[in-house]
């Protein structure tokens, strides 16, 4: 019993991080209808921003994540207005391959600018864990989890309690109708893409607290991010967060019965099963 | 006396909590032309979709040529001889009209024969000229008739026409009516026709069915229907536009 509870605890904490990283992907899909293969590159970018903040300003990665949020937003907004906007009415294939091109540009752009070196931070929390009876709660993942929950609540408030949020949701549901109500949907697309990039970049800041930054780190997360958003329901914001928790728990708990090597195998089988049986995601529309 | 061509009994369709069709029952005989009318949202298109197998009814039975069709996939229903056109037209874009019709013929015969069928079907609707047009370049009336040609290519026994005359001029409408009757006579095809244009329906149909809020509220000859108080009530109550 203890190993199972411990596994669920571990999975829950890291799952919160997956959720934040993936929620941007889901937001972009929900509002723009685009599957962004370059989304994980904003995570990489966020990690670099947070690393520079740590290295030169001495900021904890959790604070650096806030800077990453801002940088991610700006870059995302610009990319949407300059590039993505041009394929908004194109076929899915054109959209997918625009983002694949962006992935190559961003990953290798980072290599050219930052070089291939691994950049990691050292924080006290990395070496600490709290004990709760027989259970360990890693401080660094706990902090990451709290930051993930905080940004999720902020996002939820933004989407549900502000005019901008309503405009974004209206655009997601029916762009032509939203336009009739005086919403500048092109601008909203830019904002939503920027917001998606910002959230993933913020997630990058969190990830930096336990993993080193390097130009191809995004590749480690891209498939995972897709799994998270599909489990939660592509396009569903709260679904992505819950999907993240679920992926974390599946990865962690599956190791009790399967070799760890196969933790992603278990995940992908569930992923296909969910797509086949419940394409709207495990959590469905209720979570939207 | 053998079974009618189509015999629908107690068909109920639900979308979520909403009843789209409620215990609908009617029959269609061989070579019969039947009108199906009702206010917007009465369930006419749902009725067609259910008959061809796109929706699965909650209960009831749909027997076509003596065979139960509930649970069959649409392509099986089509091969059995019942198909429909799409109200807002669903020709395959990115193909010419000819290829659309040809594709439908390919469902049941090899390429060489299918080519003949396709050419014949276009000729039947006087659309030989439009064969080379890409769907994107066709007018709405052309698309609606193209739908009929494509449906014809499946060699149906019963064809469900969903507002194919919506955008036609009166003269064109007369031509289509004549075509339908000719097809009935030459190929023995039965028709169920949904149309908002009352004159056309009256002219075409031997019998008319009236749907309102998913229920069949009347059925009879055109004369009977036009004097049926329940029908008038349904139309006036729903604020009819025609």
């Amino acid at each position, binding site marked *: 019993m203890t190993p199972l509870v411990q596994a669920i605890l571990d999975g829950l904490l890291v799952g919160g991080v997956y959720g934040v990283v993936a929620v941007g992907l889901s937001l972009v899909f929900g509002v723009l209808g685009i*599957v962004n293969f370059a989304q994980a590159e904003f995570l990489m970018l966020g990690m670099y921003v947070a690393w520079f903040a740590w290295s030169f300003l001495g900021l904890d990665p959790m604070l650096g994540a806030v800077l990453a949020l801002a940088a991610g937003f700006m870059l995302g907004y610009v990319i949407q207005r300059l590039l993505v906007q041009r*394929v908004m009415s194109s*076929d*899915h*294939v*054109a959209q*997918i*391959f*625009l983002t694949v*091109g*962006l*992935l*190559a*540009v*961003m*990953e*290798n752009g980072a*290599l050219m600018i930052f070089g291939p070196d691994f950049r990691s931070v050292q924080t006290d929390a990395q070496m600490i864990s709290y004990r709760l009876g027989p259970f360990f709660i890693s401080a660094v993942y706990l902090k990451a989890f709290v930051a993930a929950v905080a940004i999720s609540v902020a996002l939820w408030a933004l989407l549900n309690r502000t005019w901008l949020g309503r405009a974004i949701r209206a655009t997601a549901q029916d762009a032509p109708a939203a336009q009739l109500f005086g919403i500048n949907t092109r601008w909203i697309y830019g904002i939503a893409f920027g917001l998606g990039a910002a959230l993933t970049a913020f997630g990058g800041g969190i990830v930096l607290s336990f993993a080193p930054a390097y*130009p191809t780190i995004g590749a480690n997360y891209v*498939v995972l991010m897709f*799994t998270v958003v599909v489990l939660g329901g592509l396009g569903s914001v709260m679904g992505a967060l819950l999907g993240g928790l679920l992926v974390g728990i599946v990865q962690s708990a599956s190791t009790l019965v399967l*070799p760890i*090597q*196969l933790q*992603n195998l278990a995940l*992908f*089988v569930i*992923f*296909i*099963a969910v*797509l*086949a049986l419940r*394409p709207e995601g495990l959590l469905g529309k209720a979570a939207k | 006396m053998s079974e009618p061509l189509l015999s629908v009994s107690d068909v109920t369709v639900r979308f979520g909590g909403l009843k789209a069709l409620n215990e609908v029952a009617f029959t269609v005989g061989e070579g019969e032309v039947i009108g199906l009318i009702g206010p917007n949202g009465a369930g006419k298109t749902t009725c067609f979709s259910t008959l061809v197998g*796109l929706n699965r009814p909650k209960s009831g039975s749909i027997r076509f040529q003596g065979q139960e069709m509930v649970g069959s*996939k*649409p*392509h099986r229903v*089509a*091969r059995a001889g019942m198909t429909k056109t799409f109200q807002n037209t669903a020709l*395959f*874009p*990115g*193909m*010419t009209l*000819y*290829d659309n019709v*040809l*594709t*439908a013929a*390919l*469902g*049941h015969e*090899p*390429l060489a024969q*299918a*080519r003949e069928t396709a050419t014949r079907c276009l000729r039947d609707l006087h659309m030989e000229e439009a064969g*080379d047009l*890409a769907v994107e370049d066709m007018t709405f009336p052309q698309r609606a008739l193209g739908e009929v040609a*494509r449906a014809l290519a*499946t060699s149906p026994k019963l064809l469900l026409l969903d507002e194919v005359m919506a955008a036609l001029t009166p003269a064109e409408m007369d031509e289509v009516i004549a075509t339908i009757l000719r097809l009935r006579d030459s190929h023995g095809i039965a028709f169920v026709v949904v149309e908002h244009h009352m004159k056309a329906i009256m002219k075409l149909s031997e019998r008319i069915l009236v749907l309102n809020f998913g229920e069949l509220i009347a059925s009879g000859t055109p004369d009977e229907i036009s004097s049926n108080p329940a029908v008038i009530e349904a139309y006036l109550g729903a604020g009819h536009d025609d």
Partner: protein
Amino acid sequence: MKRSLLILAVIAIAAILLGLALDPRSYGVRVLCLILMAAALGQAWNIVGGLANQISLGHAAFFGIGAYTSTVLQVQFELTPWIGMPIGAVLAAVAAGAIALPTMRLKGPYFALATLAFGEICRIGAQAMSGVTGGPQGLSVPFYGDSLAMMQFRQPGAYVPLFAALFFLVSAVFAVMSHGRLGYMLRAVRENEEAAEVTGIDTVRIKLTGAIISAACTALVGGLFAQFTFFIDPDTVFSTTEISIRAALIAIVGGVGLLWGPIVGALFVVLVEEFLNSTLSDALPGISPFLFGVALVVIVIARPEGLVSFRHLVTDRFGKKGKEA
């Protein structure tokens, strides 16, 4: 259709002649092989991706199955790839059937993501089954020197006819399908599945057939790839980026759904890549994939329908010629 097959044959023969004209050990001859291989791979993908518009991002699964089947049989039983490759094609077809059943109802991005996950499952599976596949360390094709019986040659020049033949085979399959019954039906399914069903097309069976043929062709390309590079490992032959996305990319850059699309796409992708690698590789790490990404972004924005544009060909070629052929 006859005209298309004739042009394909001319291209294949021209490629073989070009191969004979070049130094058989040269880099140019290898690039020629890579172009033919890329075209065959893109064309195999085009069968489902183009005709049925199922944007698969998991074709590496079939490529890898093809590569591993013939190579494992060659390593373990000294079975020639002439037999091993068809066996690989059959296994890939079985795999395609298995994954098509749960995924074929999925649309657009959902289908893309499901197939992507399937490719990853196969990669992880090949890594874990180290008893058969050699695991992550990969598998070397046994060295036979020059042996037609074992489909192995010292010089890349000798592979040109094989790749040209494979290219012709897969392209001909595409051409025949595209102009034949199956092609019409696949296109109908692509454009409107409901309408296709209502006009009597068994959409499930059609999609399954398309997926199986596409997978089998992809597996053949994978098998020949293994014979050509002599070394395979799971990360290479089951690679999402290097195989799955690339296969789609080749077809899409050229013009998805079109016979000439993957050919133009392969020329473009391979030549740009090799040009960038050979001129800039030494300059600044990352510059060549960076510029490749830039080129992709520019193409998608400038010509979202591919280098060979789709629309005018529909009416100009398939429409009118379709009836006469």
